């Protein structure tokens, strides 16, 4: 399951996930944190618990680390997974220099302005749509994220997703696994190119 493009695991990494309410943004974070826990890493998952007010975007921050985690907050995340344009506008500035931005290129129609960050654009909606339903877009994205960053192994992501969606049965599991792998494959292709 490892591949040539996978980076070596880093000691501590913070990832922000952001998008519209319906895009499964919090689930991505939860999956990453669960995978980290299953790999016996230290993890924290912090949702933005909103402004006690409706509307707007959802986001969460996940830290995966080999050591106890001090602050679960990420003013300067290592990676940002941005599922729509407002998320890009809001979070681009904070990404750590040298960090990575994962863009849902199906919905983000502007390009990041910064030149000191890596940008990975993935048409996750299209890919998921091709697999059967755009609802799997977040799974495509998490596959891509993990493949690119090596935060956790793809295997444990698939495992975590399986256990999280346990009740939904094997069909859903199959779909999710497919989506995750497609996301990973897309990144491989990118870096291969």
């Amino acid at each position, binding site marked *: 399951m490892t591949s040539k493009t996978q980076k070596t695991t880093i000691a501590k990494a913070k990832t922000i996930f952001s998008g519209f309410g319906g895009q499964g943004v919090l689930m991505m974070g939860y999956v990453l944190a669960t995978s980290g826990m299953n790999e016996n890493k230290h993890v924290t998952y912090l949702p933005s618990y909103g402004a*006690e*007010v*409706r*509307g*707007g975007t959802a986001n969460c921050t996940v830290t995966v680390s080999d050591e106890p985690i001090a602050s679960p907050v990420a003013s300067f995340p290592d990676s940002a997974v941005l599922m729509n344009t407002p998320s890009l506008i809001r979070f681009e500035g904070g990404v750590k220099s040298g960090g990575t931005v994962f863009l849902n290129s199906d919905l983000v129609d502007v390009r990041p302005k910064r030149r000191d960050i890596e940008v990975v654009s993935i048409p996750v909606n299209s890919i998921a749509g091709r697999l059967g339903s755009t609802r799997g877009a977040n799974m495509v994205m998490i596959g891509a994220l993990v493949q690119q960053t090596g935060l956790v192994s793809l295997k444990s992501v698939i495992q975590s997703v399986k256990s999280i969606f346990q009740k939904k049965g094997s069909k859903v599991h199959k779909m999710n696994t497919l989506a995750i792998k497609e996301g990973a494959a897309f990144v491989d292709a990118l870096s291969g190119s």
Partner: protein
Amino acid sequence: MAKQIFKRPEALKDAIFHYCPGCGHSIIHRLTAEVIDELGIRERTVGVPPAGCAVLAYNYFDVDMGEAPHGRALAVATGIKRARPDLIVFTYQGDGDIAAIGTAETIHAANRGERLTAIFVNNGVYGMTGGQMAPTTLIGQTTTTTQRGRAPLRDGYPLDLSQMLGVAAGSVYVARTSVTSPKSILKTKKAIKKAFQVQMNDLGFALVEILSQCPTNWKLSSVDSCKRIEEEVVKSYPLGVIKDTTGKGH
């Protein structure tokens, strides 16, 4: 020439509502603003917004506004109105706000006959805090604190506050309406207007309870939310005028 026949009321600022798609709060805001326009009282109206999804109502209403702690809107409004009887003071409150934590303040403001207009938005849940049971939640309805449906033995019964306020000696006008269709929306507007007029005529306390859709927490589409009100909610909370003694030379 094309003539514009429907536009934004003056008493609303040019801000985009933060409410969810299809939320009744948005409609009720507009109606209230239209009434304020039509009565020509914008420059002497003070609004008291609630804690609740409408906590930011002051971003929308183009009138002076003073915040109240959760449930205390009618006490705060009483203070404003008694100190400045020339102002027109209205509260805007959710069902949790007015009928749970604020029960005492509500009943006593009404019973004192305070010259106030209360807009009571009954959406059957605590919208702002994420959809917990409200006093008005229907029996069997699932919320985040009644995940197996509201069970009277544990969770009590739906509370009919307006009916109780009808008993209050100081209330002059109490009506229940909804905002599920153009027709009901227009009725609601009329009721709100009357509730302001009661105050302008110094008659006593007036309240309009509005059954309002919360598609987000009901986990229904906007259209189905309206249907739910029309078909189910009204059975527990029948629409109509509950009390009107404006004719009686109160």
